[in-house]
Protein backbone atom coordinates (compact mmCIF):
# COMPACT_ATOMS: atom_id res chain seq x y z
CA UNK A 1 0.00 0.00 0.00
CA UNK A 2 2.88 2.34 0.80
CA UNK A 3 4.11 2.05 -2.72
CA UNK A 4 1.11 3.78 -4.18
CA UNK A 5 0.39 6.42 -1.61
CA UNK A 6 2.50 9.38 -2.39
CA UNK A 7 2.10 12.50 -0.43
CA UNK A 8 4.92 14.45 -1.88
CA UNK A 9 3.69 16.72 -4.57
CA UNK A 10 7.08 17.02 -6.22
CA UNK A 11 7.56 13.33 -6.62
CA UNK A 12 4.06 12.89 -7.95
CA UNK A 13 4.67 15.62 -10.49
CA UNK A 14 7.83 13.94 -11.73
CA UNK A 15 5.96 10.69 -11.94
CA UNK A 16 3.14 12.27 -13.87
CA UNK A 17 5.53 13.78 -16.38
CA UNK A 18 7.18 10.40 -16.74
CA UNK A 19 3.81 8.75 -17.20
CA UNK A 20 2.75 11.24 -19.83
CA UNK A 21 5.98 10.69 -21.71
CA UNK A 22 5.62 6.95 -21.71
CA UNK A 23 2.12 7.29 -22.95
CA UNK A 24 3.12 9.63 -25.73
CA UNK A 25 6.09 7.51 -26.66
CA UNK A 26 4.18 4.27 -27.08
CA UNK A 27 5.13 3.34 -30.63
CA UNK A 28 2.91 1.74 -33.20
CA UNK A 29 5.42 -0.65 -34.83
CA UNK A 30 6.18 -2.44 -31.55
CA UNK A 31 2.53 -3.22 -31.08
CA UNK A 32 2.27 -4.60 -34.57
CA UNK A 33 5.21 -6.84 -34.01
CA UNK A 34 3.71 -8.06 -30.78
CA UNK A 35 0.64 -9.60 -32.40
CA UNK A 36 2.86 -12.21 -33.90
CA UNK A 37 4.28 -13.09 -30.47
CA UNK A 38 2.88 -16.02 -28.53
CA UNK A 39 0.37 -15.09 -25.85
CA UNK A 40 2.21 -14.94 -22.53
CA UNK A 41 0.53 -15.22 -19.12
CA UNK A 42 0.44 -12.09 -16.97
CA UNK A 43 3.48 -11.98 -14.72
CA UNK A 44 3.86 -9.94 -11.55
CA UNK A 45 0.15 -9.79 -10.72
CA UNK A 46 -0.47 -8.17 -7.32
CA UNK A 47 -3.62 -7.68 -5.35
CA UNK A 48 -4.23 -5.35 -2.44
CA UNK A 49 -7.19 -4.14 -0.49
CA UNK A 50 -8.69 -1.07 -2.17
CA UNK A 51 -7.60 1.82 0.03
CA UNK A 52 -9.91 4.52 1.48
CA UNK A 53 -13.11 2.53 1.15
CA UNK A 54 -15.65 0.83 3.37
CA UNK A 55 -14.36 -2.57 2.31
CA UNK A 56 -15.46 -5.29 -0.06
CA UNK A 57 -13.27 -4.10 -2.93
CA UNK A 58 -9.95 -5.55 -4.08
CA UNK A 59 -7.47 -3.83 -6.36
CA UNK A 60 -5.48 -5.83 -8.89
CA UNK A 61 -2.40 -4.46 -10.59
CA UNK A 62 -0.01 -5.74 -13.21
CA UNK A 63 2.37 -4.15 -15.66
CA UNK A 64 1.27 -2.94 -19.06
CA UNK A 65 3.03 -5.08 -21.69
CA UNK A 66 3.94 -4.27 -25.28
CA UNK A 67 1.61 -7.08 -26.34
CA UNK A 68 -1.44 -5.29 -24.89
CA UNK A 69 -3.27 -4.67 -28.16
CA UNK A 70 -7.02 -4.28 -28.62
CA UNK A 71 -7.38 -7.85 -29.91
CA UNK A 72 -6.18 -9.19 -26.56
CA UNK A 73 -8.77 -9.38 -23.80
CA UNK A 74 -8.09 -9.59 -20.10
CA UNK A 75 -10.45 -11.56 -17.91
CA UNK A 76 -10.33 -11.20 -14.14
CA UNK A 77 -11.55 -14.15 -12.09
CA UNK A 78 -12.38 -14.23 -8.39
CA UNK A 79 -13.02 -17.08 -6.00
CA UNK A 80 -13.67 -17.45 -2.31
CA UNK A 81 -12.65 -21.13 -2.29
CA UNK A 82 -9.20 -22.69 -1.98
CA UNK A 83 -9.68 -24.54 -5.26
CA UNK A 84 -12.13 -23.84 -8.08
CA UNK A 85 -15.26 -21.75 -7.73
CA UNK A 86 -13.99 -19.11 -10.17
CA UNK A 87 -16.37 -16.32 -11.15
CA UNK A 88 -15.58 -14.00 -14.04
CA UNK A 89 -15.64 -10.51 -12.52
CA UNK A 90 -14.28 -8.28 -15.26
CA UNK A 91 -13.47 -8.48 -18.94
CA UNK A 92 -11.90 -5.69 -20.96
CA UNK A 93 -9.61 -5.04 -23.96
CA UNK A 94 -5.94 -5.15 -23.02
CA UNK A 95 -5.22 -1.57 -24.05
CA UNK A 96 -7.64 -0.11 -21.46
CA UNK A 97 -7.94 0.20 -17.67
CA UNK A 98 -4.66 1.63 -16.42
CA UNK A 99 -3.85 3.52 -13.23
CA UNK A 100 -5.24 6.75 -14.59
CA UNK A 101 -8.75 5.31 -14.91
CA UNK A 102 -9.03 5.04 -11.13
CA UNK A 103 -10.64 8.26 -9.97
CA UNK A 104 -8.33 9.28 -7.15
CA UNK A 105 -6.20 12.41 -6.65
CA UNK A 106 -2.46 12.52 -7.15
CA UNK A 107 -1.61 12.64 -3.42
CA UNK A 108 -3.42 9.39 -2.81
CA UNK A 109 -2.83 7.43 -5.96
CA UNK A 110 -0.17 6.82 -8.57
CA UNK A 111 -1.95 7.56 -11.84
CA UNK A 112 0.59 5.61 -13.83
CA UNK A 113 -0.34 4.34 -17.27
CA UNK A 114 2.42 1.74 -16.95
CA UNK A 115 0.26 -0.48 -14.82
CA UNK A 116 -3.16 -2.01 -15.32
CA UNK A 117 -5.35 -1.28 -12.30
CA UNK A 118 -8.69 -3.02 -11.86
CA UNK A 119 -11.12 -2.64 -8.98
CA UNK A 120 -13.16 -5.75 -8.21
CA UNK A 121 -16.27 -5.05 -6.14
CA UNK A 122 -16.83 -8.30 -4.33
CA UNK A 123 -20.32 -7.52 -3.05
CA UNK A 124 -21.50 -7.95 -6.63
CA UNK A 125 -20.69 -11.66 -6.38
CA UNK A 126 -20.72 -12.46 -2.69
CA UNK A 127 -22.91 -11.25 0.16
CA UNK A 128 -22.35 -7.91 1.80
CA UNK A 129 -21.16 -9.61 5.00
CA UNK A 130 -18.76 -12.00 3.30
CA UNK A 131 -17.09 -9.50 1.02
CA UNK A 132 -15.19 -7.68 3.77
CA UNK A 133 -12.76 -9.51 6.01
CA UNK A 134 -12.65 -12.88 4.18
CA UNK A 135 -9.88 -14.25 2.01
CA UNK A 136 -10.38 -14.03 -1.76
CA UNK A 137 -8.30 -15.41 -4.61
CA UNK A 138 -7.80 -13.79 -7.98
CA UNK A 139 -6.30 -14.67 -11.33
CA UNK A 140 -6.09 -12.89 -14.66
CA UNK A 141 -6.39 -14.58 -18.03
CA UNK A 142 -5.10 -13.03 -21.23
CA UNK A 143 -7.25 -14.14 -24.17
CA UNK A 144 -6.58 -13.76 -27.86
CA UNK A 145 -8.88 -15.63 -30.19
CA UNK A 146 -8.92 -19.19 -28.87
CA UNK A 147 -5.67 -18.89 -26.93
CA UNK A 148 -5.82 -18.31 -23.20
CA UNK A 149 -2.92 -17.74 -20.84
CA UNK A 150 -3.65 -17.65 -17.12
CA UNK A 151 -1.58 -15.95 -14.45
CA UNK A 152 -0.72 -17.40 -11.08
CA UNK A 153 -3.28 -17.04 -8.28
CA UNK A 154 -2.95 -14.18 -5.79
CA UNK A 155 -4.95 -13.64 -2.60
CA UNK A 156 -6.06 -10.81 -0.36
CA UNK A 157 -8.30 -10.09 2.61
CA UNK A 158 -10.31 -6.91 2.01
CA UNK A 159 -10.58 -4.42 4.84
CA UNK A 160 -12.66 -1.54 6.03
CA UNK A 161 -10.32 1.45 6.02
CA UNK A 162 -10.07 4.23 8.57
CA UNK A 163 -9.21 7.31 6.56
CA UNK A 164 -10.11 8.80 3.23
CA UNK A 165 -6.83 10.22 2.11
CA UNK A 166 -8.48 11.26 -1.14
CA UNK A 167 -10.56 13.78 0.82
CA UNK A 168 -7.43 15.41 2.23
CA UNK A 169 -8.01 18.63 0.24
CA UNK A 170 -11.42 18.94 1.82
CA UNK A 171 -10.03 18.26 5.30
CA UNK A 172 -7.33 20.91 4.92
CA UNK A 173 -9.93 23.49 3.92
CA UNK A 174 -12.10 22.47 6.86
CA UNK A 175 -9.20 22.85 9.29
CA UNK A 176 -8.34 26.29 7.93
CA UNK A 177 -11.94 27.39 8.40
CA UNK A 178 -12.14 25.95 11.92
CA UNK A 179 -8.95 27.73 12.97
CA UNK A 180 -10.21 30.97 11.43
CA UNK A 181 -13.55 30.45 13.15
CA UNK A 182 -12.02 30.08 16.61
CA UNK A 183 -9.69 32.96 16.02
CA UNK A 184 -12.57 35.20 14.98
CA UNK A 185 -14.80 34.14 17.84
CA UNK A 186 -12.16 34.47 20.53
CA UNK A 187 -11.18 37.92 19.25
CA UNK A 188 -14.75 39.07 19.16
CA UNK A 189 -15.03 42.75 20.00
CA UNK A 190 -18.00 44.61 21.18
CA UNK A 191 -17.61 47.45 18.74
CA UNK A 192 -16.10 48.32 15.44
CA UNK A 193 -17.18 45.41 13.28
CA UNK A 194 -18.82 46.72 10.19
CA UNK A 195 -21.80 44.87 8.80
CA UNK A 196 -23.42 45.96 5.60
CA UNK A 197 -26.97 47.17 6.09
CA UNK A 198 -29.54 44.55 5.25
CA UNK A 199 -32.70 46.44 4.36
CA UNK A 200 -34.96 43.44 4.87
CA UNK A 201 -33.89 43.09 8.48
CA UNK A 202 -34.09 46.78 9.23
CA UNK A 203 -37.67 46.67 8.04
CA UNK A 204 -38.67 44.18 10.74
CA UNK A 205 -39.17 46.96 13.31
CA UNK A 206 -41.30 48.90 10.87
CA UNK A 207 -43.42 45.85 10.16
CA UNK A 208 -44.00 45.09 13.83
CA UNK A 209 -44.73 48.72 14.57
CA UNK A 210 -47.31 48.77 11.84
CA UNK A 211 -48.94 45.63 13.17
CA UNK A 212 -49.19 47.19 16.63
CA UNK A 213 -50.78 50.34 15.24
CA UNK A 214 -53.29 48.46 13.15
CA UNK A 215 -54.02 45.94 15.87
CA UNK A 216 -53.57 43.10 13.41
CA UNK A 217 -51.48 39.96 13.74
CA UNK A 218 -48.13 39.10 12.17
CA UNK A 219 -47.75 35.82 10.32
CA UNK A 220 -44.39 34.08 10.43
CA UNK A 221 -43.82 31.08 8.10
CA UNK A 222 -40.83 28.84 8.75
CA UNK A 223 -41.14 27.08 5.41
CA UNK A 224 -41.39 23.40 4.61
CA UNK A 225 -37.88 22.38 5.67
CA UNK A 226 -37.05 20.01 8.47
CA UNK A 227 -35.14 21.03 11.58
CA UNK A 228 -31.91 19.63 10.18
CA UNK A 229 -31.84 22.18 7.37
CA UNK A 230 -29.70 25.23 7.93
CA UNK A 231 -32.33 27.56 6.54
CA UNK A 232 -34.89 26.29 9.04
CA UNK A 233 -32.45 26.75 11.91
CA UNK A 234 -31.70 30.27 10.70
CA UNK A 235 -35.43 30.87 10.51
CA UNK A 236 -35.81 29.82 14.15
CA UNK A 237 -33.11 32.35 15.13
CA UNK A 238 -34.95 35.14 13.35
CA UNK A 239 -38.26 34.03 14.84
CA UNK A 240 -36.67 34.45 18.27
CA UNK A 241 -35.73 38.05 17.55
CA UNK A 242 -39.01 38.87 15.86
CA UNK A 243 -41.14 37.43 18.64
CA UNK A 244 -39.10 39.30 21.25
CA UNK A 245 -40.00 42.55 19.54
CA UNK A 246 -43.59 41.44 19.15
CA UNK A 247 -43.72 40.78 22.87
CA UNK A 248 -42.22 44.18 23.65
CA UNK A 249 -44.74 45.99 21.49
CA UNK A 250 -47.50 43.74 22.83
CA UNK A 251 -48.49 42.83 19.30
CA UNK A 252 -49.72 39.45 18.05
CA UNK A 253 -47.82 36.75 16.17
CA UNK A 254 -48.99 33.51 14.55
CA UNK A 255 -46.68 30.79 13.34
CA UNK A 256 -48.30 28.04 11.24
CA UNK A 257 -46.09 24.98 10.81
CA UNK A 258 -45.43 22.30 8.24
CA UNK A 259 -43.13 20.14 10.35
CA UNK A 260 -44.07 19.07 13.89
CA UNK A 261 -40.45 18.99 15.07
CA UNK A 262 -39.90 22.54 13.86
CA UNK A 263 -43.09 23.49 15.66
CA UNK A 264 -41.84 22.03 18.93
CA UNK A 265 -38.53 23.87 18.65
CA UNK A 266 -40.24 27.13 17.71
CA UNK A 267 -42.53 26.89 20.72
CA UNK A 268 -39.46 26.93 22.96
CA UNK A 269 -37.91 29.78 21.02
CA UNK A 270 -41.00 32.00 21.18
CA UNK A 271 -41.64 31.24 24.85
CA UNK A 272 -38.06 32.19 25.65
CA UNK A 273 -38.35 35.44 23.71
CA UNK A 274 -41.50 36.40 25.60
CA UNK A 275 -39.73 35.73 28.87
CA UNK A 276 -36.71 37.78 27.83
CA UNK A 277 -38.98 40.63 26.82
CA UNK A 278 -40.51 40.46 30.29
CA UNK A 279 -43.96 39.49 29.04
CA UNK A 280 -44.35 35.81 29.97
CA UNK A 281 -48.02 36.52 30.74
CA UNK A 282 -48.72 37.41 27.09
CA UNK A 283 -47.35 34.11 25.80
CA UNK A 284 -49.93 31.62 24.60
CA UNK A 285 -49.21 28.06 23.60
CA UNK A 286 -51.17 28.34 20.37
CA UNK A 287 -48.90 30.94 18.79
CA UNK A 288 -47.19 28.02 17.08
CA UNK A 289 -49.56 25.54 15.52
CA UNK A 290 -49.32 22.65 13.12
CA UNK A 291 -51.19 22.83 9.82
CA UNK A 292 -50.28 19.99 7.48
CA UNK A 293 -47.29 18.09 6.26
CA UNK A 294 -48.61 18.16 2.73
CA UNK A 295 -47.10 21.04 0.78
CA UNK A 296 -50.24 22.26 -0.92
CA UNK A 297 -52.59 21.59 1.96
CA UNK A 298 -50.26 23.76 3.98
CA UNK A 299 -50.31 26.49 1.33
CA UNK A 300 -54.09 26.34 0.97
CA UNK A 301 -54.68 26.52 4.68
CA UNK A 302 -52.27 29.38 5.32
CA UNK A 303 -53.60 31.27 2.29
CA UNK A 304 -57.06 30.97 3.79
CA UNK A 305 -55.92 32.37 7.12
CA UNK A 306 -54.07 35.26 5.50
CA UNK A 307 -56.97 36.29 3.30
CA UNK A 308 -59.44 36.09 6.19
CA UNK A 309 -57.36 37.83 8.83
CA UNK A 310 -55.52 40.33 6.59
CA UNK A 311 -52.35 40.42 8.72
CA UNK A 312 -50.24 43.57 8.96
CA UNK A 313 -47.04 41.73 8.11
CA UNK A 314 -45.96 38.36 6.72
CA UNK A 315 -42.54 36.80 7.18
CA UNK A 316 -41.39 33.94 4.97
CA UNK A 317 -38.11 32.68 6.31
CA UNK A 318 -36.65 29.26 5.60
CA UNK A 319 -36.90 26.58 2.97
CA UNK A 320 -39.63 27.12 0.37
CA UNK A 321 -40.60 25.35 -2.81
CA UNK A 322 -43.60 25.83 -5.10
CA UNK A 323 -45.72 27.26 -2.30
CA UNK A 324 -43.53 30.39 -2.15
CA UNK A 325 -45.57 32.38 -4.63
CA UNK A 326 -48.86 30.85 -3.50
CA UNK A 327 -48.26 32.30 -0.05
CA UNK A 328 -46.51 35.53 -0.97
CA UNK A 329 -49.02 36.56 -3.62
CA UNK A 330 -51.95 36.17 -1.26
CA UNK A 331 -50.06 38.14 1.36
CA UNK A 332 -49.32 40.88 -1.16
CA UNK A 333 -52.94 41.23 -2.23
CA UNK A 334 -54.10 41.32 1.39
CA UNK A 335 -51.90 44.39 1.80
CA UNK A 336 -49.35 43.07 4.28
CA UNK A 337 -45.74 44.22 4.51
CA UNK A 338 -43.83 41.15 3.42
CA UNK A 339 -40.28 40.13 4.26
CA UNK A 340 -38.94 36.89 2.80
CA UNK A 341 -35.69 34.99 3.09
CA UNK A 342 -34.67 31.69 1.57
CA UNK A 343 -31.64 29.79 0.35
CA UNK A 344 -33.59 28.04 -2.40
CA UNK A 345 -32.25 30.09 -5.24
CA UNK A 346 -34.92 29.20 -7.77
CA UNK A 347 -37.68 30.47 -5.49
CA UNK A 348 -35.98 33.83 -5.01
CA UNK A 349 -37.55 35.41 -8.12
CA UNK A 350 -41.03 34.73 -6.77
CA UNK A 351 -40.23 36.35 -3.46
CA UNK A 352 -38.57 39.31 -5.17
CA UNK A 353 -41.67 40.08 -7.15
CA UNK A 354 -44.26 39.51 -4.44
CA UNK A 355 -42.48 40.71 -1.27
CA UNK A 356 -41.21 44.08 -0.10
CA UNK A 357 -37.85 42.76 1.07
CA UNK A 358 -36.03 39.53 0.30
CA UNK A 359 -32.98 38.04 1.99
CA UNK A 360 -30.99 35.84 -0.34
CA UNK A 361 -29.19 32.74 0.85
CA UNK A 362 -26.41 33.72 3.17
CA UNK A 363 -28.16 36.93 4.25
CA UNK A 364 -30.70 34.63 5.84
CA UNK A 365 -27.95 32.83 7.73
CA UNK A 366 -26.41 36.11 8.84
CA UNK A 367 -29.73 37.48 10.05
CA UNK A 368 -29.47 35.94 13.52
CA UNK A 369 -26.15 37.68 14.13
CA UNK A 370 -27.34 40.94 12.57
CA UNK A 371 -30.44 41.17 14.71
CA UNK A 372 -29.03 39.98 18.01
CA UNK A 373 -25.86 42.12 17.69
CA UNK A 374 -24.02 39.53 19.77
CA UNK A 375 -20.29 40.05 19.24
CA UNK A 376 -19.44 36.34 18.96
CA UNK A 377 -22.07 35.74 16.30
CA UNK A 378 -21.10 38.88 14.45
CA UNK A 379 -17.44 37.97 14.27
CA UNK A 380 -18.32 34.53 12.92
CA UNK A 381 -19.49 36.40 9.85
CA UNK A 382 -15.85 37.23 9.21
CA UNK A 383 -15.20 33.55 8.67
CA UNK A 384 -17.90 33.54 6.03
CA UNK A 385 -16.07 36.37 4.30
CA UNK A 386 -12.77 34.53 4.58
CA UNK A 387 -14.38 31.49 2.97
CA UNK A 388 -15.58 33.62 0.12
CA UNK A 389 -12.14 35.15 -0.25
CA UNK A 390 -10.60 31.67 -0.47
CA UNK A 391 -13.11 30.70 -3.14
CA UNK A 392 -12.54 33.88 -5.15
CA UNK A 393 -8.76 33.59 -5.05
CA UNK A 394 -8.93 29.87 -5.90
CA UNK A 395 -11.25 30.48 -8.82
CA UNK A 396 -9.02 33.25 -10.16
CA UNK A 397 -5.78 31.31 -9.89
CA UNK A 398 -7.47 28.10 -10.95
CA UNK A 399 -8.62 29.74 -14.17
CA UNK A 400 -5.15 31.17 -14.83
CA UNK A 401 -3.27 27.95 -14.06
CA UNK A 402 -5.61 25.63 -15.94
CA UNK A 403 -5.84 28.07 -18.84
CA UNK A 404 -2.09 28.45 -19.17
CA UNK A 405 -1.58 24.73 -18.56
CA UNK A 406 -4.00 23.77 -21.28
CA UNK A 407 -2.46 26.28 -23.66
CA UNK A 408 1.09 25.04 -23.02
CA UNK A 409 -0.04 21.39 -22.91
CA UNK A 410 1.21 20.79 -19.38
CA UNK A 411 -1.30 18.01 -18.87
CA UNK A 412 0.12 16.64 -15.60
CA UNK A 413 0.19 20.15 -14.14
CA UNK A 414 -3.43 20.76 -15.15
CA UNK A 415 -4.32 17.42 -13.62
CA UNK A 416 -2.71 18.40 -10.32
CA UNK A 417 -4.67 21.65 -10.19
CA UNK A 418 -7.92 19.93 -11.08
CA UNK A 419 -7.33 17.22 -8.46
CA UNK A 420 -6.81 19.83 -5.79
CA UNK A 421 -10.22 21.37 -6.35
CA UNK A 422 -12.23 18.23 -6.86
CA UNK A 423 -14.49 16.65 -4.26
CA UNK A 424 -13.88 12.92 -3.96
Amino acid at each position, binding site marked *: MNVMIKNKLGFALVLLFAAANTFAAKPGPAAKKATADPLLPVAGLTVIDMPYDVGGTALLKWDVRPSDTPDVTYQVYVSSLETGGWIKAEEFPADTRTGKDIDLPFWAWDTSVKEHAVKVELNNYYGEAQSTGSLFHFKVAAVRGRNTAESEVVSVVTLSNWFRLDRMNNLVL*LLILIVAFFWAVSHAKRKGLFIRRIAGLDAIDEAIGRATEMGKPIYYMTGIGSMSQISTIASA*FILGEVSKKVAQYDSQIKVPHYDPIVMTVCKEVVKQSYMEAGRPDSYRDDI*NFFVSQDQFSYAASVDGMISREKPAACFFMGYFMAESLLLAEVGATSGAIQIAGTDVEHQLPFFFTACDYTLMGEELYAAGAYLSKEPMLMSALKVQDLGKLIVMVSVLFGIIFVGVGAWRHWDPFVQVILNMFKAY
Partner: protein
Amino acid sequence: MKLIKKQIPLAIVFVFGVLTLISYYIPHKKSVDFMEMMNKWENIVAAFAFFLGLISLFYSHYSKIARKVDGWGYSLFVYIGFLAMVVPAIYCHGKQMDAAGKTALGWSFSFIYNPLSATMFAILAFYIVSTAYRSFRIKSLQAFVLFVAAFILILGKVPLGQIIWTSVLGWTGAGVDQVIDWIMSYPAVAGKRGIMIGIAIGAVVTSFKIIFGIERQYMGKD
Protein backbone atom coordinates in the same frame (compact mmCIF):
# COMPACT_ATOMS: atom_id res chain seq x y z
CA MET B 1 -31.93 22.88 35.88
CA LYS B 2 -29.28 24.64 33.85
CA LEU B 3 -27.50 21.33 33.46
CA ILE B 4 -30.54 19.64 31.96
CA LYS B 5 -31.74 22.59 29.90
CA LYS B 6 -28.39 23.83 28.70
CA GLN B 7 -25.23 21.83 29.20
CA ILE B 8 -26.47 18.34 28.36
CA PRO B 9 -28.20 19.39 25.11
CA LEU B 10 -25.13 21.39 24.09
CA ALA B 11 -22.90 18.42 24.79
CA ILE B 12 -25.14 16.17 22.69
CA VAL B 13 -25.05 18.67 19.82
CA PHE B 14 -21.27 18.94 20.06
CA VAL B 15 -20.55 15.20 20.25
CA PHE B 16 -22.90 14.16 17.47
CA GLY B 17 -22.02 17.15 15.33
CA VAL B 18 -18.32 16.32 15.48
CA LEU B 19 -18.94 12.60 14.95
CA THR B 20 -21.05 13.30 11.87
CA LEU B 21 -18.43 15.68 10.56
CA ILE B 22 -15.50 13.29 10.93
CA SER B 23 -17.51 10.37 9.56
CA TYR B 24 -17.12 12.09 6.19
CA TYR B 25 -13.40 11.33 6.36
CA ILE B 26 -13.73 7.83 7.79
CA PRO B 27 -14.87 5.22 5.29
CA HIS B 28 -14.89 2.42 7.89
CA LYS B 29 -17.94 0.22 8.26
CA LYS B 30 -18.40 1.46 11.81
CA SER B 31 -18.78 5.03 10.61
CA VAL B 32 -21.24 3.98 7.88
CA ASP B 33 -23.27 2.05 10.45
CA PHE B 34 -23.21 5.03 12.76
CA MET B 35 -24.65 7.30 10.08
CA GLU B 36 -27.33 4.74 9.29
CA MET B 37 -28.28 4.52 12.93
CA MET B 38 -28.54 8.31 13.16
CA ASN B 39 -30.86 8.35 10.16
CA LYS B 40 -33.07 5.73 11.76
CA TRP B 41 -33.19 7.62 15.04
CA GLU B 42 -34.19 10.76 13.20
CA ASN B 43 -37.04 8.88 11.53
CA ILE B 44 -38.23 7.53 14.85
CA VAL B 45 -38.16 10.94 16.50
CA ALA B 46 -40.03 12.39 13.51
CA ALA B 47 -42.72 9.73 13.79
CA PHE B 48 -43.39 10.64 17.42
CA ALA B 49 -43.30 14.33 16.62
CA PHE B 50 -45.96 13.76 14.01
CA PHE B 51 -48.39 12.83 16.77
CA LEU B 52 -47.57 16.07 18.52
CA GLY B 53 -48.38 17.89 15.31
CA LEU B 54 -51.66 16.06 14.93
CA ILE B 55 -52.68 16.88 18.48
CA SER B 56 -51.78 20.54 17.94
CA LEU B 57 -53.78 20.62 14.71
CA PHE B 58 -56.88 19.02 16.19
CA TYR B 59 -56.69 21.11 19.32
CA SER B 60 -56.36 24.45 17.52
CA HIS B 61 -59.27 23.68 15.22
CA TYR B 62 -61.36 22.29 18.05
CA SER B 63 -60.95 25.54 19.96
CA LYS B 64 -61.92 27.50 16.84
CA ILE B 65 -65.12 25.51 16.52
CA ALA B 66 -65.84 25.69 20.23
CA ARG B 67 -65.38 29.47 20.31
CA LYS B 68 -67.24 29.88 17.00
CA VAL B 69 -64.57 32.27 15.69
CA ASP B 70 -64.85 33.72 12.18
CA GLY B 71 -64.72 30.97 9.58
CA TRP B 72 -65.07 28.16 12.12
CA GLY B 73 -66.92 26.17 9.49
CA TYR B 74 -63.67 25.62 7.61
CA SER B 75 -62.26 23.95 10.68
CA LEU B 76 -64.84 21.21 10.32
CA PHE B 77 -63.22 20.29 7.03
CA VAL B 78 -59.98 19.48 8.82
CA TYR B 79 -61.77 16.60 10.53
CA ILE B 80 -63.77 15.62 7.46
CA GLY B 81 -60.69 15.59 5.24
CA PHE B 82 -58.68 13.65 7.79
CA LEU B 83 -61.34 10.97 8.17
CA ALA B 84 -62.00 10.77 4.42
CA MET B 85 -58.41 9.63 3.82
CA VAL B 86 -57.53 7.77 7.02
CA VAL B 87 -60.64 5.60 7.41
CA PRO B 88 -60.48 4.07 3.89
CA ALA B 89 -56.72 3.61 4.27
CA ILE B 90 -57.17 1.56 7.43
CA TYR B 91 -60.15 -0.28 6.00
CA CYS B 92 -58.31 -1.27 2.78
CA HIS B 93 -54.96 -1.97 4.49
CA GLY B 94 -53.35 0.78 2.44
CA LYS B 95 -54.08 -0.90 -0.91
CA GLN B 96 -55.43 1.33 -3.69
CA MET B 97 -56.23 -1.49 -6.11
CA ASP B 98 -57.43 -5.03 -5.64
CA ALA B 99 -58.83 -7.71 -7.90
CA ALA B 100 -62.18 -5.89 -8.11
CA GLY B 101 -60.57 -2.59 -9.19
CA LYS B 102 -60.27 0.58 -7.15
CA THR B 103 -60.66 0.18 -3.41
CA ALA B 104 -62.19 2.83 -1.19
CA LEU B 105 -58.73 4.27 -0.64
CA GLY B 106 -58.10 4.29 -4.37
CA TRP B 107 -61.34 6.20 -4.78
CA SER B 108 -60.45 8.74 -2.08
CA PHE B 109 -57.03 9.17 -3.66
CA SER B 110 -58.33 9.67 -7.20
CA PHE B 111 -61.36 11.78 -6.44
CA ILE B 112 -60.48 13.72 -3.28
CA TYR B 113 -56.73 14.03 -2.83
CA ASN B 114 -55.92 14.12 -6.54
CA PRO B 115 -58.18 17.04 -7.56
CA LEU B 116 -57.57 19.06 -4.38
CA SER B 117 -53.83 18.83 -4.74
CA ALA B 118 -53.90 19.55 -8.47
CA THR B 119 -56.09 22.60 -7.89
CA MET B 120 -53.63 24.16 -5.48
CA PHE B 121 -50.73 23.69 -7.87
CA ALA B 122 -52.78 25.01 -10.77
CA ILE B 123 -53.51 28.24 -8.88
CA LEU B 124 -49.80 28.89 -9.16
CA ALA B 125 -50.22 29.59 -12.89
CA PHE B 126 -52.80 32.30 -12.17
CA TYR B 127 -50.63 33.87 -9.52
CA ILE B 128 -47.57 33.87 -11.77
CA VAL B 129 -49.48 35.69 -14.48
CA SER B 130 -50.92 38.29 -12.15
CA THR B 131 -47.56 38.83 -10.41
CA ALA B 132 -45.87 39.20 -13.78
CA TYR B 133 -48.35 41.89 -14.70
CA ARG B 134 -48.10 43.77 -11.42
CA SER B 135 -44.41 43.50 -10.66
CA PHE B 136 -42.47 43.10 -13.87
CA ARG B 137 -41.77 46.79 -14.36
CA ILE B 138 -38.62 48.20 -15.89
CA LYS B 139 -37.59 50.61 -13.17
CA SER B 140 -33.81 50.34 -13.50
CA LEU B 141 -31.09 49.11 -15.82
CA GLN B 142 -30.92 45.76 -13.98
CA ALA B 143 -34.65 45.35 -14.33
CA PHE B 144 -34.28 46.02 -18.04
CA VAL B 145 -31.66 43.28 -18.45
CA LEU B 146 -33.90 40.90 -16.52
CA PHE B 147 -36.81 41.93 -18.71
CA VAL B 148 -34.96 41.22 -21.94
CA ALA B 149 -33.75 37.82 -20.73
CA ALA B 150 -37.18 36.84 -19.45
CA PHE B 151 -38.85 38.00 -22.64
CA ILE B 152 -36.59 35.87 -24.83
CA LEU B 153 -36.98 32.89 -22.54
CA ILE B 154 -40.75 33.00 -22.47
CA LEU B 155 -40.86 33.50 -26.21
CA GLY B 156 -38.57 30.56 -26.86
CA LYS B 157 -40.45 28.24 -24.53
CA VAL B 158 -43.37 27.83 -26.90
CA PRO B 159 -43.54 26.94 -30.58
CA LEU B 160 -45.64 29.99 -31.47
CA GLY B 161 -43.00 32.22 -29.88
CA GLN B 162 -40.32 30.47 -31.87
CA ILE B 163 -42.21 31.16 -35.07
CA ILE B 164 -42.58 34.82 -34.09
CA TRP B 165 -38.85 35.01 -33.40
CA THR B 166 -37.91 33.51 -36.76
CA SER B 167 -40.21 35.81 -38.68
CA VAL B 168 -39.09 38.97 -36.87
CA LEU B 169 -35.49 38.28 -35.94
CA GLY B 170 -34.68 35.44 -38.32
CA TRP B 171 -32.36 37.72 -40.33
CA THR B 172 -29.89 37.86 -37.42
CA GLY B 173 -29.05 34.22 -38.05
CA ALA B 174 -29.40 33.36 -34.36
CA GLY B 175 -32.19 30.94 -33.51
CA VAL B 176 -34.11 31.61 -30.32
CA ASP B 177 -32.98 28.19 -29.07
CA GLN B 178 -29.34 29.16 -29.37
CA VAL B 179 -29.91 32.44 -27.58
CA ILE B 180 -31.76 30.67 -24.76
CA ASP B 181 -29.05 28.04 -24.55
CA TRP B 182 -26.48 30.76 -24.18
CA ILE B 183 -28.44 32.64 -21.53
CA MET B 184 -29.10 29.46 -19.56
CA SER B 185 -25.59 28.03 -19.85
CA TYR B 186 -23.52 31.13 -19.11
CA PRO B 187 -25.04 34.12 -17.31
CA ALA B 188 -27.71 32.05 -15.52
CA VAL B 189 -25.38 29.26 -14.44
CA ALA B 190 -22.74 31.79 -13.35
CA GLY B 191 -25.26 33.59 -11.17
CA LYS B 192 -26.62 30.36 -9.76
CA ARG B 193 -23.16 29.07 -8.93
CA GLY B 194 -22.29 32.33 -7.21
CA ILE B 195 -25.34 32.10 -4.98
CA MET B 196 -24.73 28.39 -4.35
CA ILE B 197 -21.13 28.96 -3.26
CA GLY B 198 -22.21 31.76 -0.94
CA ILE B 199 -24.91 29.55 0.53
CA ALA B 200 -22.52 26.63 0.97
CA ILE B 201 -20.01 28.74 2.88
CA GLY B 202 -22.78 30.28 4.96
CA ALA B 203 -24.02 26.78 5.76
CA VAL B 204 -20.54 25.66 6.85
CA VAL B 205 -20.11 28.61 9.21
CA THR B 206 -23.63 28.27 10.59
CA SER B 207 -22.92 24.60 11.25
CA PHE B 208 -19.77 25.55 13.17
CA LYS B 209 -21.76 28.01 15.22
CA ILE B 210 -24.24 25.31 16.14
CA ILE B 211 -21.74 22.49 16.71
CA PHE B 212 -19.53 24.64 18.92
CA GLY B 213 -22.49 26.02 20.81
CA ILE B 214 -22.09 29.67 19.88
CA GLU B 215 -25.48 30.07 18.31
CA ARG B 216 -28.00 28.35 20.57
CA GLN B 217 -31.14 30.36 20.28
CA TYR B 218 -32.92 27.32 18.89
CA MET B 219 -32.94 25.83 22.37
CA GLY B 220 -34.11 29.00 24.09
CA LYS B 221 -31.48 31.30 25.61
CA ASP B 222 -31.35 30.75 29.41
